[in-house]
């Protein structure tokens, strides 16, 4: 007497083939300290992500405030006015450099965490 084994349905056979085919290659282990770096990054993620716009906006706002204060200076103090105009102008000019410094710091932090 022969025992007839029902063949696996096509749908199930296909899924079995798909699932087993994606079990390789074996992944190399992740660095042991990575979880700690990721957690630190997640805790400080918001601040690091906002660093660039905050720095740039801070410089720009400070410059604009100083510009707005110019008319309040007493008339006849032109030498003072020149200085007061120069400060916000320098501030505004510096804002892209401040942004660049922040970008550089963020990149370094990323590469450190990666290492």
């Amino acid at each position, binding site marked *: 007497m022969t025992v007839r084994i029902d063949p696996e349905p*096509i*749908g*199930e*056979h*296909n*899924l*079995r*083939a*798909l*699932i*087993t*085919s*994606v*079990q*390789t*290659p*074996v*992944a*190399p282990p*992740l660095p042991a300290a*990575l*979880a*700690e*770096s*990721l*957690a*630190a*990054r*997640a*805790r400080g*993620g*918001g601040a*690091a*992500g906002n660093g660039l716009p905050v720095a740039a906006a801070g410089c720009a706002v400070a410059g604009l405030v100083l510009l707005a204060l110019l008319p309040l200076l007493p008339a006849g103090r032109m030498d003072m006015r020149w200085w007061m105009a120069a400060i916000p102008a320098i501030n505004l000019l510096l804002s892209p450099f401040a942004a660049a410094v922040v970008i550089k710091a963020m990149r370094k932090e*990323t590469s450190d*965490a*990666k290492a």
Partner: protein
Amino acid sequence: MAVASSEDRALTAALCRGETGAWAELCERYGGALYRFAFHLCGGESAWAEDVRQETLLAAAAAIQRFRGDAPLFGWLCAIARCKAADEIRRRGRMADPIPENAASAGAWDNLETEPLPETWMERSELRAQVIEALWSLPPEYHRLLMARYVNGIGVDLLVRRSGRSYKAVESMLARARAALRRQLREVDHDGTN
């Protein structure tokens, strides 16, 4: 559309709090699958796949507060990995794009129930990447059951003994898990980045 499972939501909450244990669990749960996904995405370059995996995890850590849970967590990681691989392709100035294109496989999973898989199909890396994304985006209980049944080759009888459920209940859960995988495959295929 699939959403994050309750386990994923609980894990995400801990990830947002920056708990080291939660990040270790994420690496443990998805690290291997993410590497394999990246491996197929990167045309089988292991060093590149390793870079993509690490960059993906770093980007995920920076952006976890913005993860809303309206997609499976692994699907979200896969979307980041696609972006990281695309960045590298742009840096390398490659002409060929190995990132799965939905157009190349659209409808690939529609006849999964009725027709045998073409023999050469699983050599296509974009389809393998889709299978990985779909399989690890399933609710964990379905994922574990499918892995036990098809990867570890555990028979239904043993699954019944291990789970303490009835034979009928295990078979029914297996059927639901298979249906969920088929749905997820079609979703990944048609939605792409999930």
